[in-house]
């Protein structure tokens, strides 16, 4: 399965998860959220993670983001061990996490001000990314005036504005309606092809995973570990029409049945 090799232009390892284990102590004993999670992500790669709820998908993302610490093992980004959050790793949350007291423009500029960039540059960068997500007409609006899809576009623009080399997306389209979701998928794919950032995308939507990713990681639950890695050998640019092709259907069905089996296992 070498259909995507042209996109893995460098082949350099971007992220290395080494035997990551995460245990949450609870009143009813320890819960092993992740055990022996091992993964290499190449530069510019688009990875999607699917799996039943409670399989530790968000845990591994939070560890990569530096928001949580692994119980054992480590995550290396560009060869350096992750130890706390950093601006080179952008995160997009399912709940948008926009600052409600700031306008769209000020939200996008939040991290840029912390970087202490010159004013003109901050303005130029935020204009560029607000244009990228097509919200020029709303740059002075507050989040409460925006729809869910628009809010998530702002969050994506805010993450991109920091120019991260790795983008971590935690079910970013999970709260959106089907139409908005497909629209944002297309936009994200376009952005990925122009901006060339490594993407680690968590979703519970199998179709979404297959249309976006070069590799789909299927997780198994309790303790969370990788069950299977599926190469999606469908060339880019992918569009919504890609979903109608036979190959897409085959891969989607395969991933779907694996996830479903995992779900049945979990219920036993």
């Amino acid at each position, binding site marked *: 399965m070498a259909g995507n090799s042209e996109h893995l232009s460098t082949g350099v390892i971007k992220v290395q998860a080494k035997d990551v284990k995460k245990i949450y102590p609870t009143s009813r004993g320890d819960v092993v959220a992740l055990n022996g999670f091992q993964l290499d992500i190449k530069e510019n790669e688009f990875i999607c993670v699917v799996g039943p709820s409670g399989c530790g998908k968000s845990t591994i993302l939070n560890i990569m*983001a*530096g*928001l949580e610490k692994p119980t054992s093992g480590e995550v290396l980004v560009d060869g350096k061990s992750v130890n706390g*959050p*950093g*601006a080179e*790793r*952008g*995160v997009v*949350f399912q*709940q948008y*996490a*926009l*600052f*409600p*007291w*700031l306008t769209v423009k000020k939200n996008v500029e*939040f*991290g840029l001000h*912390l*970087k202490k960039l010159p004013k003109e540059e901050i303005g130029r960068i935020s204009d560029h990314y607000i244009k990228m997500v097509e919200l020029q007409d*709303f740059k*002075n*609006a*507050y*989040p*409460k*005036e925006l729809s869910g899809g628009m809010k998530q576009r702002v969050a994506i623009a*805010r993450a991109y504005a*920091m120019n991260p080399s790795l983008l971590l997306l935690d079910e970013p389209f999970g709260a959106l309606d089907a139409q908005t979701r497909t629209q944002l998928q297309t936009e994200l794919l376009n952005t990925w092809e122009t901006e060339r950032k490594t993407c680690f995308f968590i979703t519970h939507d199998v179709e979404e995973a297959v249309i976006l990713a070069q590799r789909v990681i299927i997780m198994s639950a309790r303790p969370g570990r990788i069950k299977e890695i599926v190469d999606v050998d469908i060339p880019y640019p992918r569009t919504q029409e890609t979903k109608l092709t036979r190959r897409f259907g085959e891969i989607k069905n395969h991933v779907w049945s694996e996830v479903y089996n995992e779900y049945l296992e979990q219920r036993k």
Partner: protein
Amino acid sequence: MLKKKVEFDWSGWLYGLISLGAAIALWMIISHTEAHVVFATPAEVWKAFLEGLLSGKLLLHIWASLRRSLSGFILAFVCALPVAFVMGWYRPVRLLLEHWVKFVKSIPPISYITLIIVAMGVGEAAKVTVIFIGSFLVMVINIYQGVRNVDNTLIKAAHVLGAGDISIFFKVVIPASLPYVMVAARLGLASSLTTLVAAELTGAQMGLGQMIQEASMYFKMDIVLMGILIIGIVGTVLDRAICLLERRLTAWQETRSI
């Protein structure tokens, strides 16, 4: 952008007028029964009001009361802000102070007025201190709840955008708690007025509470009623003022319907 045109709210005003008219009518009916001994008629109260106004005494009473309650309130607000933020942000400080704040808050200020008067005398300082304590505790509790309620996702979002603890405190925690600060200010102001009257009843040269106290000794019920109404009006006006400020400062809030 997206600004809705504010239309004049006819029905709101109409019902407001009906409600006011009904209240005055009810007052008139009551004051024309045997209850008149206690309840002066609207006309008598109005006359007492005009007399007080013309002699200049009423304004002096209002000013004395306003100055006391506002200085107690403003002092309390200025002190409550840092204390509440530090309590919300640092666990050890919270653990040390929380129970005491809640304990003292559960004591009505009227019950320790005597203690403070014995300690500080009957002057202004004692009254302002009582008002300060009550108002301060109410505001600390509310602001600190706001700090504790800051959405954790926002803190995470700021973290991944490169914010350190200090930036998060000033750029996320403080603005996110602003709605609670405004609510706290309203409650603190209400508390300061409540305590004010209690403090003035214990003895003062001037002030609305003192005016009521004195009038009741001579059974001038028109002045008593007038004083009560003025306290209500002053409280309402101050509350509306904070409300307006709140609407300006926290217009970004999701739940606020304009």
